[in-house]
């Protein structure tokens, strides 16, 4: 079946906000303002943007955790835009979510085994012993040991808690997992463990991810396609290679250029002063990005650009997307010194050897014992 797993068409979410306490004037926060995307089976779509751009709200709307103001959401070929609680109950075992904060998203009063068993109980999967076996398999899948099932969340480090959150999301064999900043709260060495785990799980279970992140480096590692959001709208979406090699929207450029790179020889080449992101309560007219864009024209100040195809599966919302704007190329290629690359490849080989030895040992145990 080639139909996309999830299709989101022009969804909007407006929150009421009291702008003036005294006059009682009502205003609207257009948190998500006409967002469309598709997620194909087995693929990772990343939503990137700065805080307040609406990326997390978009993800929650897609899962119907919040009701949308307008638009359409289809999942596995079914329109779930106005499904009732009962219908959603059935759909939700196929779509799960992993949260950013591994401390807040686990119930501190439940043992890990209970946390992982709960979704199975809710959906009436198997009997007690089958569920126990399933919990053990899940823990093994995310790199936790069996005895961890008897412990409480506070006994675990941030990285291990995130593994528990991932195992919980996997419990019901979903086809889509929304990863809402899953590694942002973790240290870089743990971040690498978790992103590697998410990639391994994706290939072994053919999962689709909607990957929400503000970290473009992590996105480049995880995503197949990327959608860049700015103040409630998608400004550019493209396959990963195209987006990182040749970003076409000035905001995408600005974002990419702003990331400090771990290479002292590479001096950043940033666009002109960028200012702070404007408030979503009162966004700028026309193209929301125009006050921070050095290519803005009069048209940009008045008319909001539509998201239109720009070849190679790319969509851009910029009036000047076709023009040859004067910007410096994005730096590409390895930023690691030869010595560092050489030593890291030794580390990787060492790791592979140890992994083979470990599996060998496990097999011996299994056959010998």
């Amino acid at each position, binding site marked *: 079946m080639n139909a996309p797993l999830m299709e989101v068409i022009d969804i909007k979410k407006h929150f009421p906000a009291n702008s003036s306490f005294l006059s009682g004037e009502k205003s609207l926060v257009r948190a998500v303002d006409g967002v469309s995307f598709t997620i194909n089976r087995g693929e990772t779509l990343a939503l990137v943007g700065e805080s307040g751009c609406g990326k997390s709200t978009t993800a929650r709307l897609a899962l119907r955790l919040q009701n949308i103001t307008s638009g359409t959401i289809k999942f596995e070929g079914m329109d779930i835009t106005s499904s009732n609680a009962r219908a959603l109950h059935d759909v939700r075992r196929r779509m799960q979510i992993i949260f950013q904060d591994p401390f807040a998203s686990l119930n501190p009063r439940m043992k890990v085994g209970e946390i992982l068993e709960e979704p199975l109980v809710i959906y009436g999967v198997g009997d007690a012993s089958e569920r126990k076996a399933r919990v053990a398999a899940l823990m093994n899948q995310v790199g936790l040991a069996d005895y961890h099932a008897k412990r409480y969340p506070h006994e675990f*480090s941030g990285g291990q808690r995130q593994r528990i959150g991932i195992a919980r999301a996997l419990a019901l064999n979903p086809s889509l997992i929304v990863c809402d900043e899953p590694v942002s709260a973790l240290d870089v060495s743990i971040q*690498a463990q978790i992103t590697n785990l998410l990639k391994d799980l994706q290939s072994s279970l053919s999962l689709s991810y909607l990957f929400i992140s503000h970290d*473009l*480096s992590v996105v480049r590692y995880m995503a197949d396609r990327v959608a860049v959001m700015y103040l409630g709208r998608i400004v550019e979406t493209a396959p990963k290679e195209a987006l990182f090699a040749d970003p076409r929207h000035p905001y995408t450029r600005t974002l990419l250029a702003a*990331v400090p790179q*771990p290479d*002292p020889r590479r001096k950043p080449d940033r666009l002109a002063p960028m200012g702070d992101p404007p408030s979503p309560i009162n966004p700028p007219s026309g193209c929301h990005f125009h006050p921070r864009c050095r290519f803005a024209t009069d048209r940009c100040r008045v008319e909001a650009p539509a998201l239109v195809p720009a070849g190679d599966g790319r969509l851009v919302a910029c009036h000047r997307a076709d023009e040859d704007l004067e910007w410096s190329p994005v730096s590409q290629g390895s930023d690691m010194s030869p010595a*560092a690359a050489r030593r890291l490849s*030794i*580390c990787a080989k060492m790791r592979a050897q140890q992994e083979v030895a470990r599996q060998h040992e496990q097999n011996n145990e299994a056959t010998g014992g």
Partner: protein
Amino acid sequence: MTQKSSPYFSELRADSVSHDVVLSIAGLRTTFRTDAGEVAAVDGVNISLRRGKTLAIVGESGCGKSMLSLSIMQLLPGNGRVSDGRIDFEGKMLVGVPEAEMQAIRGKRIAMIFQEPMTSLNPAFTIGNQIIEAIRAHDKDVTFSVARERAIKALKRVGIPAAERRVDEYPHQLSGGMRQRVMIAMALVCEPEVLIADEPTTALDVTVQAQILELLKSLQNETGMSIILITHDLGVVAEMADDMAVMYAGRIVETGSVSDVFDDPQHPYTLGLLGSTPKISEDAKRLVAIKGSVPPLFRMPTGCRFHPRCDFCIAECKIEGASRMSEISEGHFVACIRAPVEENCRELAE
């Protein structure tokens, strides 16, 4: 490669180029009383900060990098103390200095900015009043109106638009980036010789981070101040720092100029950090993560503290002395008996 063993490298270095060093720390040990007994968050740290330069202390949470900076400022929590070592600031020993004397240094000659500007600013006072307080705390003779003028000037210098109006605003009226600019204005208003920046951009969006980093660099060029930059982000290190020290579990495992450490990273932990950092300029097949996690302070491994997570660990790594510093090249020190790794794993080096 010949390795010259020199456990007291920081003193040797400080002596040979002492005119160049504004702050040097030798054998610093900071301990905390806890239910599990006395634990050392910083354990034998040697660093020197060159005048007008930026030294980055890089490491993950719990490695002691923040406690190191609080030790310098003598702002340690009640159950913590510097139990050993020296902190030499412009010829003055800071360890054990009376609080009254420290108050004349803290904020005036060594200033500090923190990660979360919202919690560092007092929500009940205007930003102007908070900057004025900082000025008058160190110089009682400055009148309020003069101090106010200086506060406005300081806000302008850090790029706050309409500073004359903004000076009377409260912290909640400013964006995160603006608040961090206010913190920087406040820290620099007394023209300190040393600025300690503890994860100054971690809470900020990436486009705002870029602006704050640019601002710090241009202010450094303007004033000639020296910066200790505490961060977990190797990208920020590469962009900002001249020298760097990689910290793990309370100790420095590798230190040198930024170009030396990035060009020729030696310690397996430094390599692990580099391997764990996803790259924005390249499609990586797989990240070379570090296995396991940081040990708790009260259960530190013997010998090299990284050995349980290290791919290259051998029996000698587990005994005392394994974490002694060696000089790999001039000014580039590493605390690993297995470095460089390719010489110890020839069969894998092909």
